[in-house]
């Protein structure tokens, strides 16, 4: 094979795998939007908060230690030296469930039947509050996150593919980050679990009923509020998974909340109400932006186009298919 073709294949694979990382963030948005019609602006901050909490539990950091020490003149920083990642993840999941319950109790409950824009504004407020609370609880330092997921280039793939290029050509083998492979496996497991949960469990069917029609679901005795807590808790769990993946890559820090911006074009492309849409949308955006950065950018001798190119793709889709690839078609009866 020619080196150019191998490089192209490498770009395609890496683009698709980057897309999976975006999908992990987009999934949380879709779940909440599907069940409650709320566009949760705070989803990126959810991922940040979950990752901060996870590292906090792993390292035994005392929450609000800075504040406590300042107020009482104490010197508390750590409860214990370290905690196994498994237990830290369990504690983080419990924290995210409590957070979902608090959000429902303190925010959503009071905004039932309000316009979607009001709920959207509430999630903007929630994002900033949660970011501030996260800062007070765990501090703003860059935190190293390691839950045992391997990362770095795959040596096996590199060695296997190095001989694929035509003889005499300069080729170093194909590159794939192992972390992205794990992200793909985890995304597949997540989507399968979500599909099984919504198809074959009573709660899952209730969730689908709420997503289809709030009024009808209420009329058959489904508690809207408990479904909302459940959905926000699941999306908190997904945010934790996204936070782990992105935090392993860059360390856990406040810029992590900006990964939500990567999910927006994915949602526009895949549709706000479709779980497969979030995956396919992520794949398309990841692929499109990497091809654009390397090939269009290379052709025009410009760089840093991938960020806006993702939105350009989303815009083109909006013009031709406003509901996204798999979104519910908007039908308004006059």
């Amino acid at each position, binding site marked *: 094979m020619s080196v150019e073709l191998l490089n192209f294949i490498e770009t395609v694979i*890496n683009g698709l795998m980057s897309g999976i990382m975006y999908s992990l963030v987009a999934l949380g948005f879709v779940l909440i939007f599907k069940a409650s019609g709320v566009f949760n602006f705070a989803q990126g901050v959810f991922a940040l908060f979950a990752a901060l909490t996870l590292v906090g539990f792993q390292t035994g950091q005392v929450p609000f230690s800075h504040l406590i020490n300042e107020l009482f003149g104490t010197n508390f920083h750590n409860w214990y030296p370290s905690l196994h990642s498994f237990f830290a993840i369990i504690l983080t999941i419990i924290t995210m469930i409590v957070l979902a319950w608090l959000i429902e109790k303190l925010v959503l409950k009071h905004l039932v039947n309000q316009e979607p824009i009001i709920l959207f504004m509430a999630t903007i407020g929630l994002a900033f509050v949660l970011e501030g609370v996260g800062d007070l609880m765990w501090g*703003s330092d860059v935190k190293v996150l390691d839950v045992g997921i391997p*990362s770095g280039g795959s040596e096996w793939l590199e060695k296997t593919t190095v001989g694929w290029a035509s003889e005499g050509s300069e080729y170093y083998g194909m590159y794939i980050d192992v972390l992205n492979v794990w992200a793909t496996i985890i995304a597949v497991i997540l989507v399968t679990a979500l599909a099984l949960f919504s198809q074959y469990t009573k709660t899952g069917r209730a969730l689908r009923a709420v997503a289809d029609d709030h009024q009808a679901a209420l009329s058959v005795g489904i508690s809207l509020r408990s479904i909302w807590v459940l959905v926000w808790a699941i999306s908190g769990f997904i945010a934790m998974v996204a936070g782990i993946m992105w935090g392993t*890559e860059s*360390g856990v820090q*406040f*810029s992590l909340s900006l990964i939500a911006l*990567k999910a927006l074009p994915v949602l526009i492309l895949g549709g706000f109400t479709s779980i497969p849409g979030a995956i396919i949308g992520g794949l398309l955006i990841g692929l499109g932006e990497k091809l654009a950065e390397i090939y269009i950018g290379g052709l025009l001798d410009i760089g840093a186009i991938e*960020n806006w190119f993702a939105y350009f793709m989303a815009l083109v889709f909006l013009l031709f298919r406003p509901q996204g690839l798999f979104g519910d078609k908007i039908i308004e009866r006059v």
Partner: protein
Amino acid sequence: MGLKKMMVGFLGSVIAIGGFLEVATADLKFPMLVYRTGAYAPNGIPNADGFVDYYKMINARDGGIGGEKIVFPECETGYKTQVGVECYEKHKENAMVFQPMSTGITYQLIPKASADGVTVYSTGYGRTSAKNGKVFKWIFNAPATYWDGASIAVRHILKQNMGNIKGKKIALVYHNSAYGKEPIRTLQVLAKKHGYKLMLLPVDHPGQEQKATWLKIRKQRPNYVLMWGWGVMNQVAIKQASSIKFPMENFIGIWWSGSENDVMPAGAGAHGYKALTFNAPGDDYQVHKDIKKYVHDKGQASGDGSHFGTVLYNRGLFQAMVQVEAARVAQKIHGTSKITPAMYRDGMENVDLNAKRMEELGFKNFAPPFKNTCENHGGSGLAAVQQWDAKAKKWNMITEYMYGDAEVVDKLIAEDSTKYAKEQKIAMRCN
């Protein structure tokens, strides 16, 4: 309330406000533009802590500067240019000096501060050609500029290659902002001079996703990668470089891409990564002992005190020290402790931080000596290379402090500043 009571209350308020103003104007105001929140907070916090701890120490140990207390109101910019300008407008009254901590903000403040008569000190960042004091009366960027940094990095590469880098490929991975773009011109001129090929690879804010950039590097195999990054961009770039197995000893960051925060997330993969620096890391200098004694031991450390001795904390100490020293020089020149912003500028222009003075200030061997003059607001231009030891989790200085390529840099500074002077109709000074 009776009319009499109201009058007494009003007069009381006037006297109280008057008294406050008198105190406020007698103090030396050093406003701080900080970013303790947002995407760049992990860099902004240790740096701001260094400033605050140093000012607190000077107030506690010396009773201020020449008897005048330092006041240092903080204004949160979030590293946003527009907010930085608003902070400047809010605090410019009677301000001695502004340290914008952002090249973007510095560019915006240059014309404003020059018109308002306020000193701007962009330590090792900002507009490089502001080094020319003949044009930029109010702007200082000592001890080194980005163009010095670019040419020092190339000098280091030249040394490693016996002075010949013809045909080599050097990539610049840069924050796609005014800051990141600053060294491009120098690197282009140096590419012509030394015959290397320059690859430009911008990374958009915040730099969380850089896969395409590093795939390009992997395909095109540059011999060296230089980085002008900030915040999460540094951490991701170092991690990606280690992922694609780029030789870390050939990866050199500017002095804003060389803190502990930048290398820790990559773990062992960051071993061997290099960065320029104009100040030493560590916490065993006299200044640290004084800060510990007068600030930390009294429970007054800025933040939780955990950044003590880190690269960016130490840089904050250095920046604050220069600003305080400028006030002392101004007081000496003008024979008064109650200096005005204009007097402060004179002080900054006459700062002479030779080795003896550095030692007196508790900074022995902390940074290379430098001196500002009317013509030169950019100091010595000296910087060294430090290398990360992932096992010991510390930076080691691996070279002496060295100069950049004055032949190239000085010419570029003269060109750029003269052009600016023409555009702004500024008459050359220092004649």
